[in-house]
């Protein structure tokens, strides 16, 4: 559904490393066969001539189809070793895990360099992975930063507000959150970006404020466009009530981030 809504991946490192590693391994078959393999991959994936993708399972299936399971494993193992040679770091695991780790690191790099006006939808399913990502978002110690969460979370230099505090009076809860964001931002006397995040915005749905919160999501984008604020709206993907709600959320955010596997997508103009 995310792709249908016009989002495309904006991470390149994993696909580049996988493509370069595959390329090096394909070269062992000779130029002619390498070209044939790539043409074959392109014919089944309909990918462009540039051959730059990370669908390792498609590559594996091509070799299973061409040779057999064991040969497919040998070739994929060669690609894995080639990837490890290229990334030159402490990443371990199978190809899938390596690709995911590369993407996680690229997401973190992206979060560190956010320069304001971004409204990011973070659809997570794993609390630990979510916390690790959120922690990397709050890396600036000298700018105002705020995190709304269900349980108390201590990140350095981050003001932590609990959903239960905001939701203590449902009638004013939405207004209270907006006011909290405005106040945090007003404290920012630097040219750096104010950083704000909600760990799990499905709390608003749980407390019967779906309509009101979705209305806030629709409007707050224009506020972030004007103000130097970067905001991550985290949602437990398993607690989004329906596709219609998800579609609305997608419409309100220019970026979508996932945690399993790590993915970052940007809405295409």
């Amino acid at each position, binding site marked *: 559904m995310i792709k249908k809504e016009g989002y495309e991946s904006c991470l390149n490192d994993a696909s580049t490393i996988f493509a370069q590693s595959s390329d090096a391994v394909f070269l*062992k078959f*000779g130029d*002619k*066969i390498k070209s044939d*393999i790539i043409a074959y991959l392109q014919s089944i994936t309909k990918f462009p001539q540039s051959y730059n993708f990370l669908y390792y399972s498609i590559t594996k299936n091509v070799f299973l*189809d*061409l*040779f057999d399971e064991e040969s497919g494993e*040998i070739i994929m193992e060669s690609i894995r070793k080639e990837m490890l040679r290229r990334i030159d770091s402490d990443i371990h695991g199978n190809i899938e895990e390596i690709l995911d780790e590369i993407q996680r690191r690229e997401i973190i790099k992206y979060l560190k360099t956010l320069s304001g006006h971004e409204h990011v939808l973070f659809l997570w399913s794993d609390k630990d992975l979510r916390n690790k990502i959120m922690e990397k978002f709050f890396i600036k110690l000298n700018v105002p930063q705020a995190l709304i969460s269900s349980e108390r979370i201590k990140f350095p230099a981050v003001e932590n507000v609990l959903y239960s505090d905001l939701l203590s009076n449902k009638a004013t809860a939405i207004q209270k959150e907006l006011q909290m964001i405005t106040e945090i931002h007003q404290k920012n006397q630097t040219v750096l970006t104010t950083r704000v995040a909600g760990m799990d915005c499905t709390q608003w749905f749980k407390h019967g404020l779906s309509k009101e919160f979705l209305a806030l999501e629709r409007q707050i984008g224009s506020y972030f466009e004007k103000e130097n604020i970067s905001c991550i709206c985290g949602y437990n993907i398993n607690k989004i009530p329906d596709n219609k709600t998800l579609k609305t959320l997608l419409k309100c955010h220019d970026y979508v981030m996932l945690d399993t596997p790590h993915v970052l997508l940007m809405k295409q103009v």
Partner: protein
Amino acid sequence: MNQTKNKSQFTELTPIEFLDGMHDDKHIIMFDENPTYSKKIQFHFLNNGLEKGEHAIYAMPKDKDVIEKEMKGYGIDVEKYQKENLLDVYNTEKINQYLQGDSFDNLLRIIMPSDPAKICRIVGMLNFDMNTQEGMDVFLKSEKKSHSVFESFSGSWMCSYPTTNIEPENRLNWIRKLLKNHDSVIFTSSHNEGIAFDVLH
């Protein structure tokens, strides 16, 4: 050959490593994109057998004297092994021209040693026009036949073909079909050492 392997055993081998670790009789196909290196692999394969007292046969469409000279250059003691009746070199260029019938049968008739029990290593190439669909069909038929009689043969065969000779439109498909009629495959490349592995059927 149908053993269960664990992940750590899925290691790629260079052609030389593969040949040095070879214990069973194998019907190997080599797709050659680097003729100089491929010749080294062919000679290495034969030399490994000669050192074990096996009979080595080189049957390719190439000049006999040139091949023997190249073998010497590689370090094979050609005179010694020929004196011991352990090494034969054939130029197969004209086999089909002068003989009627199936080219695989013709090749066997000429190159096979008189003692069928003798363990042999053969490097061979059937002389076909592989650039056309029709040529590839006939070639594939011969390779099928050779694989079907391989069990009754004591020793290993290495069939060696230039990749560029294979009909280009369906090259991968031809390779897939050829692999079904061999136990192992070697690919040589102009850029690196290539790759070799067993193929399970």
